[in-house]
């Protein structure tokens, strides 16, 4: 398949294709920057190619190489179900490239982000402003020569002086006062309203500047970046397993899926396969998180519509899910459970039964809320026909997940690019029709039920055994084992079992082999091996010490999982060291928020709330 694409491209743009190859099954084309627009247009419109979604657009900085920068386009074709990566090298002296924002609407925001982070200009871009950083920021933070420790506080001593702030405020007020638009030949003065960042429905992290004609939204400008935490910069500065705590904070409502997505990308880069049991554990934990995420989304949307009771019901159901997560990971939100090549620890005993009980609770609450909302006239009136996104727009904004499916496109990473044994599980993907808030609501409600089914099937199919294993040796506390090992009393230590504290329960030897890939490059040895044998100790040393650790070969990989909001992709570039050269996260709700301004144009002020609730904006992954 990639061969055909390469062939066609080389025939048509022979002068501009610099290189075409596959790496880890990813099709990659390196093209000259002068042809990027034509190539993209061809790939999008050609009937054989049909790459209609611009999944991702990111910059990479290869400091010291000439050309220094690279802009990476990840395209996806719904028709052929394949991805294509286009890489465009860009000269440091003239960091410019043609914009593709006229081809894909989402490119508008993606290109703004690349400009913000790398200072690469996009010729013909309608509105090239900073997006994640604030306007006063100097420099481009993701460039390799921007030191990670450099700080630029926005509020300095001179800003605290009132006299310096007031003029700018008055200036903008004046500009708004003097702004006159025309409608049907009449001069009309519209009202401007700053919705957010301190607004209850904006979750404190997003700003919408509304131009209002009475209650009707004439235009809307969405501003993000309030929760930017330099996830991508941090990830370049730390060893591979150290990134997991940062991924917890991406989509903090379903952090386990982020963990899984990142781990799978690194595993793809390393070309390793995890154990069967681990795959199912990852499925189970992902689906539990997905349920928690959907519960939060629908609950919060209902609450913002005034249906407080539905919200509380769903919060109780989510509590059941969080308890399940807590039992496995020891934490509720910042779980850091997955590791490259496995998971931290096995599931606790009798977990399947616990999950069964909690799923029953969740199903009961879903049924309650169905009764409260699904056919409630007021609720249906509030959400039907509101925030409509047509199929074409949804594709152009590269929506994924429930929002794309609500617009009637059948795309789910779990089905299209099955990972972690999702292909062995029988489940359905609900598809909507109208692309309005109501369809999104129904799809999320149905997906929760499907997730329950997936969890139940995963438990059925999961290879059992380790849980019921009989210990040969005797059990001793882990800290005592560590002491014995340190003093060289390693005799028989290998045959003993360490009893660890609750958060590490299930990580000792009998379980260890079930959840960790048998690959010494990535998997830490069990406590028993570390303290009981020299091989284990060396292995441990090699993985933990600075400068050693997990070192994927030089290369790059894009891997996506189905997050609760849609395609959660990671693009990782490795330079062969123990730290990633570039970690790019494709957050699903970035696209939704990019399309949100269009979604609410012409709607009423009150419609903003359900529309915003339905896109499930999670600032953690939006701003990274």
């Amino acid at each position, binding site marked *: 398949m990639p061969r055909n694409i390469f062939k066609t491209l080389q025939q048509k743009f022979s002068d501009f294709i610099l290189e075409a190859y596959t790496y880890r099954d990813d099709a990659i084309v390196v093209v000259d920057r002068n042809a990027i627009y034509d190539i993209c247009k061809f790939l999008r419109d050609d009937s054989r190619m049909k790459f209609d979604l611009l999944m991702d657009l990111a910059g990479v900085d290869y400091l010291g190489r000439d050309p220094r920068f690279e802009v990476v386009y990840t395209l996806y074709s719904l028709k052929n179900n394949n991805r294509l990566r286009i890489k465009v090298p860009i000269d440091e002296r003239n960091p410019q490239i043609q914009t593709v924002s006229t081809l894909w609407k989402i490119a508008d925001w993606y290109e703004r982000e690349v400009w913000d982070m790398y200072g690469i200009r996009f010729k013909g871009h309608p509105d090239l402003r900073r997006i994640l950083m604030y306007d006063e920021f100097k420099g481009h933070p993701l460039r390799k020569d921007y030191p990670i420790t450099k700080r630029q506080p926005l509020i300095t001593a001179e800003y605290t002086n009132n006299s310096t702030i007031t003029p700018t405020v008055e200036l903008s007020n004046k500009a708004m006062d003097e702004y006159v638009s025309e409608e049907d030949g009449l001069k009309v003065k519209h009202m401007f*309203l700053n919705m957010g960042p301190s607004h209850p429905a904006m979750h404190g992290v997003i700003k919408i500047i509304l131009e209002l004609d009475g209650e009707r939204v004439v235009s809307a400008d969405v501003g993000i970046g309030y929760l930017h935490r330099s996830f991508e910069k941090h990830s370049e500065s730390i060893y591979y397993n150290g990134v997991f705590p940062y991924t917890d904070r991406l989509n903090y409502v379903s952090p386990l899926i982020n963990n899984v997505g990142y781990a799978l990308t690194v595993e793809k880069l390393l070309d390793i396969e995890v154990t069967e049991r681990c795959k199912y554990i990852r499925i189970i934990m992902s689906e539990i998180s997905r349920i928690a995420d959907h519960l939060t989304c629908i609950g919060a949307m209902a609450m913002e*519509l*005034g249906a407080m*009771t539905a919200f509380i019901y769903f919060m109780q159901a989510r509590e059941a899910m969080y308890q399940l997560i807590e039992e496995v990971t020891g934490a509720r939100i910042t779980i850091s459970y997955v590791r490259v090549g496995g998971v931290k620890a096995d599931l606790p005993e009798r977990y399947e039964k616990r999950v069964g009980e909690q799923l029953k609770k969740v199903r009961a609450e879903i049924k309650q809320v169905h009764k409260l*909302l699904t056919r409630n006239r007021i609720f249906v*009136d*509030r959400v039907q026909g509101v925030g409509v996104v047509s199929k074409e727009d949804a594709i152009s904004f590269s929506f994924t997940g429930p929002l794309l499916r609500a617009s009637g496109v059948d795309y789910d990473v779990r089905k299209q690019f099955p990972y972690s044994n999702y292909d062995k599980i029988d489940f359905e993907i609900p598809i909507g029709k109208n692309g309005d808030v109501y369809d999104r609501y129904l799809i999320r409600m149905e997906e929760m039920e499907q997730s329950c089914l997936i969890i139940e099937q995963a438990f059925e199919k999961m290879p059992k055994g380790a849980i019921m294993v009989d210990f040969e040796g005797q059990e001793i506390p882990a800290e005592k084992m560590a002491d014995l090992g340190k003093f060289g009393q390693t005799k028989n230590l290998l045959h003993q079992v360490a009893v660890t504290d609750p958060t590490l329960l299930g990580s000792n030897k009998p379980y260890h082999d079930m959840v960790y890939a048998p690959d010494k490059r990535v998997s830490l040895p069990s406590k028993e091996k570390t303290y009981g044998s020299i091989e284990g100790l060396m292995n441990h040393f090699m993985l933990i010490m600075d400068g050693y650790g997990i070192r994927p070969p030089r290369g790059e990989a894009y891997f996506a999982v189905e997050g609760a909001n849609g395609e959660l992709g990671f693009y990782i570039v490795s330079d062969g060291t123990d730290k990633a050269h570039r970690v790019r996260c494709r957050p699903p709700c970035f696209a939704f928020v990019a399309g949100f301004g269009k979604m609410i144009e012409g709607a009423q002020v*009150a419609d903003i*709330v359900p529309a915003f609730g339905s896109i499930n904006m999670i600032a953690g992954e939006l701003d990274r």
Partner: protein
Amino acid sequence: MVEGIGIVLLKLAFVLLFVLNFGGLLTWVERKQSALMQDRIGANRASIFGIRLIGLFHTIADAVKMFTKESFRPVAAEKFLFTIGPGISVFFALVGFAVIPFGDVLIIGGKEINLQLAPLNIGVLYLFAVAGMAVYGVVLGAWASKNNFALLGGLRASAQMISYEVALGVTIIGSLMIYQTVELQEIVRWQGGTLWGWLPKWGVLMQPVGFILFLTVGIAQSKRVPFDAPEGESEIIGYFLEYSGMGFGMYMLTDFVETVMISAITVTLFLGGWQVPYLMADGFHFPWGATWQLENWAVALLQVGSFTLKVMFFLWLQMTIRWTLPRFRYDQIMRLGWKYILPISLVNILITGLIITLLK
């Protein structure tokens, strides 16, 4: 003269205590009832000497908090109007109770005391006038805040309240046609009769459609969920956005007082006010012939109790609705008022008129 003023003052004290206590208690009821409905415990932390009394002290704690909080006024706000806005709001919410009868006639020492603060012969019209004025507190507060969100809230409130004022008037004309009076005490007395000798002639039975419409419009007038678009805390935060401390407290109190008000009016117009079935001025006269003589004070007590119970029932009902339904959108509220409730109540009047003419 002095005695008369004394009696009026006593009645005034009674009504005010009744209303304000109910209003205050409602803050507690709202928390506790919503907690019950949502499987929560609800407010229960406020305590005096360790006694918690299922969270009842929260009403007091709330009041103390409201009074002691800083009353903040934005720099740009219109000082005078910003200050009197909440006052106007509470004032018009409270004065409506003057015409609500809470009992029949109490005889003390040979003096007949009408258990109604102000026996106006324009009763219902007075209520409308007061209800119509309630919007000023909201609109002025909203405008004086000089905040676009508050302004939107004020606009929504004025549009909604004007629209529903029309509907409010039209929905009860059917009942007034039956009662043949607008004096509220008379209306309640009229409902003391029975149909076919056993069924109390309460308004809800004579005007079921009017009753449902009136209750809907009443809730809309009090700007509570599902009609709380002017507040819409997750959309525009509400007309009281800039208020803090007692200013906000007064707007909140208005909300609760209006809830009591709507319950009281509904009870008076449609549920026989202070009437207890088969209770006459001298005791019970059951339809099967039995009688039970009662003293005048006992009758009056029963009547006041009956009125209170009925009001409490409607308070409960409104709370249940408030915690069950989501919020309408502003234009949907207007559509409901003008396109559904108004025509239906007009038809209701027509049919009522026809039946009255035919029965003559």
